[in-house]
Each structure stands twice: as C-alpha cells, then as structure tokens.
C-alpha cells in the first residue's frame, strides 16, 4: 500500500456560496464521509491546511487580482466579478488555505514522506485566470502547485491531467507558452459546455506549442469514449513528455448523475481513468501524483467517487 496524503480542513467549508449555487460546502462533507465510512482515514496521512504565503499565489496571479479579491471579501460583497463567483467574508481566507494546504502537500511528497496525495479543497481553481476569477474559481490551485514544484524543488517537467468535465481554461492559459508544463484536458465539447474553450486545435503557442492537448467529448458519450481517448491522446503524450510529477485536476462532474454536463461517465469509468493516471505516474514520475479536487456536484455520488479515487491512490 502507498503512503497517501489526504488534505482536508473543516475551514474549507466556510466559503459560503449562498442558496442557489452548486459549489456548496456539503460537497466536502460528502467527500469526507465517503472516506470515513469506508474506514480509510487510518490508512491516510491527514494533512492540515495552512495559509499560503502570498509570494506563491503571485507566481500565477496579478497583484491587482489578489487585492481586489481580498477587498471584495472584506467589504462584504456577495460576488466577485461575475454572479457565478459567489463569495462571503471568509472566502479569501479559505482560498489562501486551499493554496497553502496544497503547497504543504506538495512539500511532503517531494520530501519523500508521501508517495501521493488527494487534496479535498474548496474553492476549485482550474477556471481561474491570472487576472480574473471565473466559474466558481478564484486562485488556480493546480497552477500554483506546479509553479511551487518547479521553483522550490527544481522539478523540470510537470504533467497536468484535468478530467473535470469543463475545460481548464485558466490552467491552459497560464502554461500556454510553457514547454515545461504539459497541460492535458478531457472535457465536454466546448460548443455545448462552459467555458466554451478547449478545442482540438488549441495546442499551445510559441515555445509551448505541442505542450497543450485537448480532448473534447460529445454530449451523451461516456466510459467507452473516455477510455479510447485517453489511450489515444494522453498515454502517448506522456510517454514522450515523461513528466517528473503528475498533477491532477480531479473534477467529478462528468458523472452520469451530475447535472452539470451531458456526459455519462460511470463510477467505474472514473476508477479506470485514475488507475491509468497512477500507472503513468508509476512509469514516468516515480509514482508522484498530487490530485486536487475541482468540480463534482452530485452529493449522492461524491462519497463513493472520492472513496474509490483515494483507494486507487493507496494502491488498494
């Protein structure tokens, strides 16, 4: 069994998105219960959250964005830059705790104290752009983790796999010109799904050309297509790129019972995907995988999905 870290903190539930919003604190409650009821907690290394140093947030985000976000929360605004981004007075602090917890997790993996980890955080991050909050996201957690690994630990090549059903536009833009971070996203076709980006012809630019890969999936498709696409697109890409660490933007909204998309991935489908990613990490990255929660809104399915996800990281 592997030494798997589990980042979770009750304070992540303090980010209150109001009554009509799918990104609720209950998601984390459901995730935690799934792990607890399956008796997995004793097998995991529990990582407490800590507040990030702002210098790490600044590796990705503009100072203006950080200050405006902080101010919006301090002033008691209900939303930040778009009604999608519902905030409360705690949101900024929670977002800083999410980033900080993830950095602490990455540190433990790099120190060799953990083989891999799952970070059950809120708010999610992959839609956040350097200067813009978007799609329920404020700080791009995965992007900041990648920068931390490169700058603090000298990691040269990072592979990011985003299987949230929505395209990770923020992460893609941040590393668009970067040939040291390979960004792969599989998501519902942008003509049918937020945020409307992530088409096949988006391959990166300048030095980063060829280090971005998008696999759009048509509405109504599911397990069979995901398996074919990942074998056809992701596996060969990582065989060539050979990432030293794999970061996963783990969204669970492609599930057939999640009404944020028309994709019909099954619970077993998610397990297949994660097993495949862990195999790639074992092959190229000394098993180093850090998986970070993005979307996933079915409170009925999240417990089992997160439990399965963590069992795969544990190697059970």
């Amino acid at each position: 069994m592997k030494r798997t870290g589990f980042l979770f903190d009750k304070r992540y539930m303090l980010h209150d998105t109001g009554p009509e919003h799918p990104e609720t604190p209950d998601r984390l409650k459901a995730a935690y219960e799934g792990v607890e009821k399956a008796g997995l907690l004793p097998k995991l290394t529990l990582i407490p959250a800590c507040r990030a140093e702002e210098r790490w947030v600044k590796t990705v985000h503009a100072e203006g964005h950080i200050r405006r976000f902080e101010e919006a929360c301090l002033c008691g605004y209900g939303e930040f830059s778009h009604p999608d981004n519902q905030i409360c007075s705690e949101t900024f602090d929670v977002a800083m705790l999410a980033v900080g917890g993830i950095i602490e997790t990455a540190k433990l993996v790099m120190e060799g104290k953990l083989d891999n980890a799952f970070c059950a955080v809120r708010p999610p991050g992959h839609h956040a752009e350097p200067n813009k909050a978007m799609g329920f996201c404020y700080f791009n957690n995965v992007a900041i983790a990648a920068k931390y690994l490169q700058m603090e630990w000298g990691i040269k090549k990072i592979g990011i796999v985003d299987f949230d059903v929505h395209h990770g536009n923020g992460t893609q833009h941040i590393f668009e010109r970067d040939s040291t971070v390979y960004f792969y996203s599989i998501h519902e076709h942008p003509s049918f799904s937020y945020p409307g980006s992530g088409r096949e012809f988006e391959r990166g630019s300048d030095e980063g050309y060829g280090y971005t890969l998008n696999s759009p999936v048509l509405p109504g498709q599911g397990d069979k297509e995901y398996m074919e696409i990942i074998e056809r697109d992701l596996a060969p890409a990582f065989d060539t790129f050979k990432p030293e660490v794999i970061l996963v933007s783990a969204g669970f909204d492609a599930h057939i019972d999640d009404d944020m998309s028309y994709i019909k991935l099954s619970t077993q489908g998610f397990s297949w995907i994660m097993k495949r990613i862990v195999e790639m990490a074992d092959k190229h990255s000394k098993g180093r995988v850090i998986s970070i929660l993005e979307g996933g809104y079915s409170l009925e399915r999240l417990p089992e999905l997160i439990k399965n996800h963590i069992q795969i990281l544990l190697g059970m």
Partner: protein
Amino acid sequence: MFIDASMTRDVVSIDPDASILEAKELLKKHRIHHLPVVDKDNTLLGIVTDRDILRALPSAFLNDEEVQRDTERFARHKIKDIMSRNVYTVSPTNTLEDALLLMEKVPVGAFPVVDQHGKLQGIISIRDLMRAFINVLGIHEPGTLLCILAEDKLGTMKRIVDAISEERIAFGSILVARHWEEGTRAVFPYLLSHNVAHVKRKLEKLGFKLLNPMEWYLDRLPKND
C-alpha cells in the same frame, strides 16, 4: 449590425496607372487578396485581385531567364489594363446581413465600402464577416448552451427569456432552429454563466422540455436503413 462597425478602415488601395508589379508587392506586403483601385480623389474606379495579378504574370514553369525577361515586359502594363470595373460594393450603412447575403450570391471574397459619393471608405472581407458573426454568437465568451423544445406559439420566447433573465443570467445569444416538428421550435440560448442547473430546473417546472443538444442533432441526421 452595420458594415461601418466591422469593416477595415485602413484599406490599401492603388492608383490605376501603377504597374502590375507594384500591385503584386502591395498584396504581398499587406497580406491581402483584394486591392481597390482609386483615383486621386479616392473615388473607386475598379478592383484588382491576386488572381488577376497571377493571370497577368508569367507561368511558374518558366526558367529564371525567361521569367526575368517576361516579368520586365509585363511589369510595364498598368493596373487599369487588368482591373475589373464592375465592382460589387456596399455602403457603410448597409447591414452585415446585406453583406452576408450578397456574398452568398456573388463569387467574390470582399466588398469595397463606398459612400454616396463613390469614395472608398473601407473594405469588408469574408474574414471580417466571420469575426462579426462570432461576436453575434457570443462564442468568444465563456458560457453554457441550453437546448429547449418550445411550442411555436406567441409569447413562448418571452417566457423563456423572462425566466432566464429573472435569474440575473446574461445571454451571449439565442438561436432558434425552425421547422423542428409541427408546432415546435428548438431554442438554443447561449448563457454567459457556469451556474445554470437551477435555470434548467426552473424551465422544466414551467413546462419546457430541455434536451441534450446532441439528442436534437442526432435526431436530425439522416437515418441509415
């Protein structure tokens, strides 16, 4: 909506007495395919395209010496000898639809834009039209597409738009697919939001049927028997 807003204003034009070689250089330098021909008062006289120029210059199969000799000879000819004088034009106050429908009818890729005095004000190409309609569709902005089956009855569209607007969600665009089935239309609102699940539920409660857009599309494909 008007050509004025989408046309290229710094239009590259040429004098009727200029040489064909000059025209070729201009097309290459500015990476364009259409060159309006104007007099000193900027009155449109004709148009020259890259095809006209290719036709006028020597074949790609000639050897270097032949090319050199022939090019010099042809270069002395003037633009007014090869330009088209019958030009399809539009005015700045024509609409984008005018340009679109005209371009569907006639075999050209760009229209010089002239005012009521015949003076060249700009040019609008198929690329400019494409950009304008991408803006109309709103697809550069992040959003979610819905597919609603609605009764083809007066007031239906208003109910849909009101239901969505009440939730403070902005529209990128709304497309309507006509002749869906007798008495129904497929309405495709493109909503500038990630948080539309509650809007979908609301529309369903109001009696609208929401479809997976692919179901609609697949249903429209010819069936293989």
